[in-house]
């Protein structure tokens, strides 16, 4: 077994990372799961002891979710309704054990097409803060994930936080997951919607679908179609199959591609309905 670093200071972590490459370990829920029956030989940089990295904090115009914040931390934080969809996603991540260990940042870095956190974070218009010594950049989540298991993170960079802009108007949100069983299930498909509204009218809508393309995607045409419409129970009726054009579903052990397309349509409607409820 080789090097295992567990710095407590953020700057120190960045310095160490520059000597890398290291496998970055947070909750371990993906790291260990992908190494069943394999030796644990990679050098590891464990970020869970870094001071302050687990904080979920309100800033002037955004919320900052520290890279070591777990799904349980999110569920127990006091957050406005725009996060309701993300919180619903948090409850659908594995079992409580996984929610207690797994981190939001780890979920996006693992870049699984079926990551439950990604559609909800896309619908929140989240940004990813990447840090290296002396340099910080923020990348929109939609650009951060390049493909299955691939992200923009360079080996000397640490995802230091997920940043969620505050909504301009009151925002409501919802998340719907479809799996072949309850709990501990990889999604067949999922959808998340965040709708900002004012005076009963949709000001801005963001809708994302996961597990139906290599990377979860926002449905821009649908978002445009929803803007300016009354925020009521009939809003889901605006959803049409053409809005799902960005999806590229595949056949796998969980479902057929054709089924995924139809299910995504239903889930999107339900996510919007849930946000309007």
């Amino acid at each position, binding site marked *: *077994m*080789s*090097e*295992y*670093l*567990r*710095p*407590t200071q953020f700057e*120190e972590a960045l310095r*160490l990372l520059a000597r890398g490459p290291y496998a970055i*370990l947070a*909750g*371990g*829920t993906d*790291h*260990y*799961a992908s190494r*069943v*029956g394999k*030796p*644990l*030989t990679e050098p*590891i940089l*464990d970020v*869970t*002891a*870094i*001071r302050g990295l*687990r904080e979920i904090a309100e800033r002037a115009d955004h919320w900052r979710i520290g890279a070591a914040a777990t799904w*349980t931390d999110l569920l127990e934080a006091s957050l406005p309704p725009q996060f309701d969809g993300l919180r619903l996603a948090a*409850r659908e991540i*594995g*079992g*409580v*054990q*996984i929610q*207690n*260990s797994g981190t939001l940042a780890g979920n996006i870095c693992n870049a699984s097409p079926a990551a439950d956190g990604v559609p909800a974070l896309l619908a929140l218009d989240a940004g990813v803060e990447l840090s290296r010594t002396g340099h910080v950049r923020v990348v929109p989540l939609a650009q951060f994930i390049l493909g299955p298991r691939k992200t923009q993170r360079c080996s000397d960079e640490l995802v230091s936080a997920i940043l969620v802009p505050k909504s301009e108007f009151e925002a409501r949100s919802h998340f719907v997951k*479809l799996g*072949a*069983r*309850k*709990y*501990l*299930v*990889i999604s*067949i498909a999922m959808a998340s919607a965040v709708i900002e509204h004012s005076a009963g009218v949709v000001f801005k809508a963001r809708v994302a679908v996961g597990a139906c393309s290599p990377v979860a995607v926002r449905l821009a045409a649908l978002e445009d179609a929803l803007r300016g419409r009354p925020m009521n129970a009939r809003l889901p009726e605006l959803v049409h199959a053409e809005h799902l054009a960005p999806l590229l579903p595949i056949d796998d*052990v*969980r*479902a*057929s591609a*054709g*089924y*995924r397309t*139809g*299910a995504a349509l*239903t889930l999107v409607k339900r996510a919007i309905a849930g946000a309007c409820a």
Partner: protein
Amino acid sequence: MNQPREGFLGQDAALELSVNGGTVRVASPPATRLADVLRDELGLTGTKIGCNAGDCGACTVLLDGRQVCSCLTAVAQAAGRNVTTVEGLAADGRLSDLQASFQKHGAAQCGICTPGMLMAAADLLARTAAPDEAEVKDALGGVLCRCTGYQKIIEAVLDVASGPRPDLPPAAGAAVGARAAKVDGIARVTGEERFGADDIPDDALWLRVIRSPHHHASFRLGDLDAVVKRTPGLERILTAKDVPSNGFGIYPHIKDQPVLADGEARFRGEAVLALVGKREAIETFDEATLPIEYVPLPPVMGLDAAMAPGAPLVLPDRPGNLLQDGGVRKGDAAAAFASCAAVAEGRFETAFVEHAYIEPEAGWARRVGKGRNARLEIHVTTQTPYMDRDEMAVVMKLKPTQVHIVPTACGGGFGGKLDMSVHPLVGLAAWLTGKTVACVYTRPESMASTTKRHPARVHAKFGCDASGRLLACEVDAEFDTGAYASWGPTVATRVPIHATGPYMVPNVRTRGRGFFTHCHPAGAFRGFGVPQGAIAHEAVMDELADKLGIDRLEFRLRNALKAGDATATGQVLEHSAGLGECLERLRPHWQRAQEEIAAFNAGSANLRRGVGIGCMWYGIGNTSLSNPSTMRIGVSKSGVVTLYSGALDIGQGSNTILTQIAADAAGLPMSTIRLVTGDTDLTADAGKTSASRQTFVSGKATELAALDLRKKLFAAANAPEGEYLDYRYKLAIEGNGKAAQIVIRRDGITHRVPLKKDILGEGYFDPPTSPADADGQGVPYASYAFAAQIAEVEVDLELGTTRVLRIVAAHDVGRAINPIQVEGQIQGGTVQGLGLALMEEYLPGRTENLHDYLIPTIGDVPHMECILVEDPEPLGPYGAKGVGEPGLIPTAPAILGAIENATGVRMRQVPVLPHRLRAALGAPA
């Protein structure tokens, strides 16, 4: 919040953590899984490893009071924090209320998931003292259980708030029928029970199996000696040449499965080599550096490929890839169909199903003694110690008495631990090296290499007269048995016998065939093919009833086998055929469900509910073969009463049930009976734990053994002959050591005699059966279980998802020796049936883990109500017969009928995955 340690850790820093209240320093490297540190370094083996991937939750511990998977936690992350394991729940030798509640409610069956369940529940209860059911499910949703069906676990957690007190064990003479707690239950809730991977000696070498990555390939081996020479810690590489007799298999005349493949691998996951050496050396060995040259060959996958004319042969001596072709013929089915008022038929298809016991295969072996006295001792998780012993003797070319099997606790079997797994590998390695050798399968290799339920294609056709009486039945069942025979012949024989369903059909023609393919062997799995057959006959019953406008339950009742009827094999059932009563007890539930569902559906568009019914029968024990059990119970000179049971309790409760039977037959309190089980040196052959046979067969042998003991004790006390049969004479063993006495009391008169010697009672029972003739006619089983179940489901029409809302299960068990254990079998079997119906499909090479292969979680289970019908079986102990398999069999048929009732669509392929149902429902409205 995690309290970070100062500085950072290099690879040699010792870590300090608090475990169950005490501070420990650990030497394991910081990236080591916490689960491994707890088990291997600290010896806390109560924490179980089921998958190492966070898929099963067996390893759940509390970290600063929160449940985490210890298999996903680097030990470095536990530094400076509080870890609580199952060993930390009991305080001062007293069970916690949670543990006591598990014991009281029968929430632990095999016990392998129990520590994880307990820790998840402990986390919940520390936050919410009196949770509701939804909260319990949310908190325990990350732990899989394959035995219980979860209901008793939920009940146990809900009951903690009330301060549960374990019931006192039943008094002498009141054990049979009592809801007695498990006699071996305490060790399962404290974590003390030792399973296959829990008691491996520290000095053991470890064995790692190298497996074929191809479904079918020839291969050549290079210079393995050179590999051993250049690899420190690697002692030996075993190949096919090392195996004295390189073939094993269930049937005495079919030893077709090699321990290590010899130049040709016939399924992905087949063992090719075994590395033996120091644990770290073999675990870190890079498999890619082995000189194995594979030449992939086209595989025969699936029944169509196996049956195609000119198909390549999987085994050279099996023309047409045919394993077996058998059937049953009675009357003239073809002629009878011509006179039927209604005929229905269909073709049904099922998938490979994985047992998914939470304990992967594990064990260790050593060579004991020297020269001609040398023996091979194997400690292993198993369902069948004596078959293992005899199989090992064949493989090693030893006498059976030279093999000693010491079963560990078995963390779930369901048929999957009837075949050998690690046994021949560790046995061979130990024999050749003279050292102790251990092997624990990873979850992926367990799934890739061990047996599965046979995929089946069943064509069934039934006809009846205008009044709904069945006249004729024709069934043709084809099974994919994989690369080797395993239990394929059993399935191909059992299914044609049961293919009529539990109904009186005068004209029968059924056929069962098994075919070889390049897949892992299909073997025994709860029901031996009968669940696949039941899907077919029950769907056809629904259709016939509908055609004639007869209620589906009433149609079944009209045709239900009853005492006096002749089965398909011409066997006249003399007793204990209680299907009619099962159906009558279900009728009010059936009517209520229909009313409720009609009301719900009237107000619902997308969600549709439906109710379905399934019936089954199941012959107890081996088919048309001798199937004996020998049991012994003794009183030592010092006054200790011991039941020597070769019948393995794999969680189903036979240790408790056999103790109850022994207690009442001997006339002693069950609390005084000690148990010795499984060890082939200490117990007699009780046969395998399968085919729902232990209560019936070993239970009867136990009753006879205890009666024999009672008779001998009465004789030793000089009681008049025959008096022992009079239970008004109360027997006791009092005192101990040199003062032990036989005490017999009646009407205030006490008779005491010193125990002068050990006294042993023995019982033998072999259920009376007869071989089948050329038409399959005969008495294949001495007794049959019967059951009927109804399922209520809710279908989401847009998504094609199905939720099972409720199951009511009526089972004729002859006599419920222990209703808790009986309910546990019904509930656990039912939930496996739910999995078969809705989610379980093993695809070789694609679902070798517990997140791609799905079994039901605590959130998928409906409320289950058990109705126990007791139509006594005179051959069985106190009227009992078997219940191990019956819960599974009618469940999928009932669910499929309910889906049809809800949607109008009959699903003929299981599992009914959402995309399959959605496609069958047609384009969205």
